[in-house]
């Protein structure tokens, strides 16, 4: 177990009488990309809040590199569903915000964030306001703000959910490319099964609320993955495998 980057043990969480997490357990290896899919309202976002240290669990533990990290925010970089780029900051200052909050001097923070503008396809937009960016660029800026914090695990909560279908495919292909290059350990929430299979090494399927991990599908497609792979039979099989698990017990 010690070689796992992230271990989640028996997480339980209720809000009053409403049980949301019912013993969630899984682990993530270093450099692994794990996607969580489940029916909407199953408690995925609560699970993220608890893992990220924003909500205390009623029971269970979160371990990072073998150490107890329950309730701690510092091992995780969190990317919420909305891009949350602040209009009073330039794009560069938005991406450097996490570093600034962590106490890095503004100049150094800008330098570190600025170095990633090229690979994130944002070069030349450092001094722009967020409103001047396209939807895809805003999500890339939000992801840049997340990864530049250099935390152990990235938590991405439906990062492309608000994008149109074409932009989403572009962003998925782009994320697959940069992730390969940087070797991040990623936990992704999505309700898009194709996105999960395309990006992840492993897909975990969650039960409806109160949720726990119902099953997993190991995605044995080689990296780097290309958009054309979506048309291959193996990709379709994996998608079907995930779909079967998701719809099991729902009468459909």
């Amino acid at each position, binding site marked *: 177990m010690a070689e796992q980057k992230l271990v989640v043990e028996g997480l339980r969480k209720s809000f009053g009488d409403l049980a949301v997490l019912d013993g969630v357990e899984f682990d993530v290896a270093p450099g692994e990309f794990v996607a969580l899919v489940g029916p909407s309202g199953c408690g995925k976002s609560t699970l993220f809040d608890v893992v990220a240290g924003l909500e205390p669990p009623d029971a269970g533990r979160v371990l990072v590199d073998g150490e107890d990290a329950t309730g701690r925010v510092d091992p995780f970089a*969190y990317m*919420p569903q909305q891009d949350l780029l602040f209009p009073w900051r330039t794009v560069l200052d938005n991406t450097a915000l996490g570093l600034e909050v962590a106490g890095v001097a503004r100049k150094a923070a800008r330098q570190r964030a600025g170095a990633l503008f090229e690979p994130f396809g944002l070069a030349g937009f450092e001094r722009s*306001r967020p409103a001047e960016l396209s939807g895809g660029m805003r999500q890339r800026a939000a992801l840049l703000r997340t990864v530049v914090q250099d935390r152990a695990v990235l938590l991405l909560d439906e990062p492309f959910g608000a994008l149109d279908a074409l932009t989403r495919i572009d962003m998925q292909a782009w994320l697959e490319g940069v992730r390969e290059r940087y070797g991040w350990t990623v936990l992704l929430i999505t309700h898009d099964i194709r996105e999960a299979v395309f990006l992840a090494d492993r897909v975990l399927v969650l039960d409806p609320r109160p949720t726990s991990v119902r099953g997993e599908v190991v995605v044995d497609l080689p990296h780097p993955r290309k958009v054309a792979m979506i048309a291959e039979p193996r990709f379709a099989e994996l998608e079907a495998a995930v779909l079967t698990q998701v719809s099991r017990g729902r009468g459909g």
Partner: protein
Amino acid sequence: MTAALARGRRVLPALVLVAIGVGAWQWYVAAAGVRPQVLPSPLRVVTEGWANRAALWANTLPTLEVTAIGFAVSLAVGWVLAVAVDFSPWLRRALTPLLVASQTLPIIAIAPLLIIWFGFGLLPKVVVIALVTFFPIAVGLIEGFGRTERPATNLLRSMGASRWAQFRYVRLPGALPSFFTALRIGITYAVTGAIFAEYVGATAGLGIFMNLQKNSFRTDLVLAAVLVTAVISVTLYLLTYAVERVVVPWSSRG
């Protein structure tokens, strides 16, 4: 040049409306033969006002001074209260009813008492102005701070931000647009508040000037002072937009 033209087109409807109103007034006074003590013509207001410009100016300066000091005090009080309330739920519950209650005070009854307590100097006027203007400012700020939504707070928390850092990086800048809206409401009340406080009792100022002229049936000079008041209010109001453009350049109103 085109920008000036566009701005001109924007204020044109207001100017047309004012011109029609003033024209109708001038015509009515001449046609009905109203005595100037009752209703002077707009032309008379302007010419008599100009003839008495030294007296008007001498009374405008104290009013401006009182307005500036009173509004500065009001801003300071509004900010301190709003920040305190934002940081402490206990203070929020303690102060909110008091803030609302302060607005139910009948200023018209309180103002003469303030003069009895504090004399004819600056203090009672500053108190009146602060009393009528701190509320919109405090409420605008409190609501502005509260506009920061949970996802943004969570994002900052995930970065390890303390409550103070959340305030500094998100809640404060996020509140500035509502602050400027509140500032515009406050600044127009401030001038009226100053006039009112002076009307009740002062040694100099547009308010006491109006009161004295009314007592000697110089309706034209009362209205000339009203005109000066309106000019001051509108100028201060427009000034807030200029300041806003500098401080909050990202705001869409810009």
